[in-house]
């Protein structure tokens, strides 16, 4: 563990030996130290000290981090199981009331057509949470793959990919979404693809800057000398070392996607009625704003709680250095 405990790499052969003798465990200081220096944060900030060397690092979330986790999990469960548990078309017994108040029967009141608001919010969770999650996973997946490819391939591919994706970032995200909606309409799949395209360049840029640093490490050189293929180096040598920061970045990107999709729906250009995500729910019920009705407050609070929860979790992740940068 010579290389593991010393942040300064004095001797190349020691590193090379270390890399050749054993498969490198992902969660020891060997790998977090170069990462930390790559992102400008001291190893102590990552929650690893010399004492924890060799022992897998447990995520220390803290109380606010766990609160975020619980809220996040709650919305995820609501998105998956909500539509099964609640039937929004169930005939409301009793009188029909537009913008009804909170009652035992309608926990969140009723909306502008007298439908149960709780059911609408839970149904909306499916669109807001799941759609955003799918888009984010696509964006980050594609971004990371391209970044790894750019890192290990020659200068030409790297330059082409970087310049090409940089061009995409020159279009503001909402503007790009508006253009896409104008051209292709706003079906659910189109929205997912649009959001994914918009956030690929950001994920690519961060993943590439991390991967380039890892690529310069001795153990990657050793792996190359050993005769490993490009795919192996991408998957086994670089990817495990950028996964931590990229997860934090994934969370941040998820927030951006949620906000973007909600804004589009709010403009009436996202999810189309009768389906509704939280953005469209706010739009539908905006008439009740002057009364301060739950019909407009509930979906707004839902969006706020989701994005805040993700922010809380990211802020308390041990590797929070990956934050910042769009």
């Amino acid at each position, binding site marked *: 563990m010579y290389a593991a405990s010393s942040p300064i790499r004095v001797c190349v052969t020691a590193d090379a030996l270390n890399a050749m003798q054993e498969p490198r465990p992902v969660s020891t200081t060997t790998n977090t130290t170069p990462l930390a220096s790559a992102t400008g944060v001291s190893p102590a900030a990552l929650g690893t000290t010399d004492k924890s060397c060799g022992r897998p690092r447990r995520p220390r979330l803290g109380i606010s981090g766990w609160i975020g986790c619980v809220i996040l999990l709650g919305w995820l469960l609501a998105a998956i199981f909500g539509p099964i548990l609640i039937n929004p078309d169930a005939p409301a017994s009793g009188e029909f009331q537009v913008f009804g108040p909170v009652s035992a029967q309608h926990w969140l009141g009723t909306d502008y057509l007298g439908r149960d608001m709780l059911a609408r919010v839970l149904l909306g969770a499916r669109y807001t949470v799941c759609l955003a999650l799918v888009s984010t996973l696509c964006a980050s997946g594609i971004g990371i793959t391209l970044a790894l490819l750019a890192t290990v391939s020659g200068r030409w591919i790297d330059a082409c990919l970087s310049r090409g994706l940089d061009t995409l970032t020159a*279009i*503001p995200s*909402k503007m790009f979404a*508006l253009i896409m909606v104008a*051209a292709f309409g706003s079906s659910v799949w189109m929205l997912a693809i649009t959001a994914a395209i918009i956030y690929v360049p950001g994920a690519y840029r961060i993943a590439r800057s991390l991967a380039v640093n890892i690529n310069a490490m001795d153990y990657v050189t050793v792996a190359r000398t050993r005769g490993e293929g490009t795919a192996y180096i991408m998957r086994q040598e670089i990817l495990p070392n950028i996964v931590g920061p990229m997860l934090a970045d994934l969370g941040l990107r998820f927030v951006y996607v949620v*906000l973007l999709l909600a804004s589009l729906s709010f403009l009436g250009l996202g999810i189309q009625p009768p389906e509704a995500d939280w953005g469209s729910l706010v739009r539908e019920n905006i008439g009740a704003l002057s009364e301060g009705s739950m019909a407009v407050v509930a979906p707004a609070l839902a969006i706020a709680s989701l994005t805040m929860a993700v922010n809380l979790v990211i802020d308390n992740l041990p590797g929070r250095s990956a934050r910042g940068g769009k």
Partner: protein
Amino acid sequence: MNLFILRLLARRVGLALISLLAVSAIVFAITAVLPGDAAQEQLGQDATPEALAALRSQMGLDVPAPVRYAHWLGGLLTGDAGESLATHMPVSEAIGSRLPNSLLLAGLTALISVPVALGLGILAAVYRGTWFDRGVSLGAVAVVSVPEFLVATLAVLLFAVQLRWLPALAYVGNDESWDKVLRSLAMPVLTLCCVIVAQMLRMTRAAVIDQLQAPYIEMVRLKGASSTRLVLFHALPNAIGPIANAVALSLSYLLGGVIIIETIFNYPGIAKLMVDSVAQRDMPVVQVCAMIFCATYLTLVTLADVCGIVANPRLRYR
């Protein structure tokens, strides 16, 4: 200023121009080439081939896409941006009548939000870790992590509905008196400011904190300088580059915010025009609005880079 910096700046501006050209190609490709045959769409499935061909040649669709792109770009540069599909008015006319409104909104917002954000950001950095800093940072995170439309609806609820201080709609007529215009602009400007201030404040705070952690600040402290002197004469001059960068970048967030705000308050600006055109699929207007927004965005981002380069003493005294 030396030759090196000038070369760096020229490079940066050239890069921005190339990006703008590439962006125009992307915008044109998405709006005019990829969706398929616009003539077919306009006439429907059961159009006769003759009518289709006639409309195609009328819309100029019978020439290959690169030629159409060149023609479109040429028109854009000479101010002849075509005709709106919905109103059959020249696009330049529709935009010309609304651009001043948007510029007024953006200008006022920048005028108010920049000093407020810089002040709060610097104070938060100086009093880092105190209750003031925590409160300000928490507020900024809260505003950043909720959508703009939420901030706007809450502001309407508070100021227009509960307190009845300000009108909820922002209509700017031509013959209104100044105080009336300002009153009707107050809500949109206020909400936009909230969003921009939050962004800028976070970046400013980070930039100043970055400087305050530098070793030379410790030296200044050891020397016995007062904390005012330390911040104003030692930390701030070094943080000007990053701060200018943060200001320009935050102002580019204004472009996203303005789309939402103009729609909510029914403000007759260019972003509202764009959203309406997207809903009506009025491509010529969408294209021009998109290009205006992208050009502004690129200008601001480039400006941010230029500030960073010019303010970097390591480059200046090379």
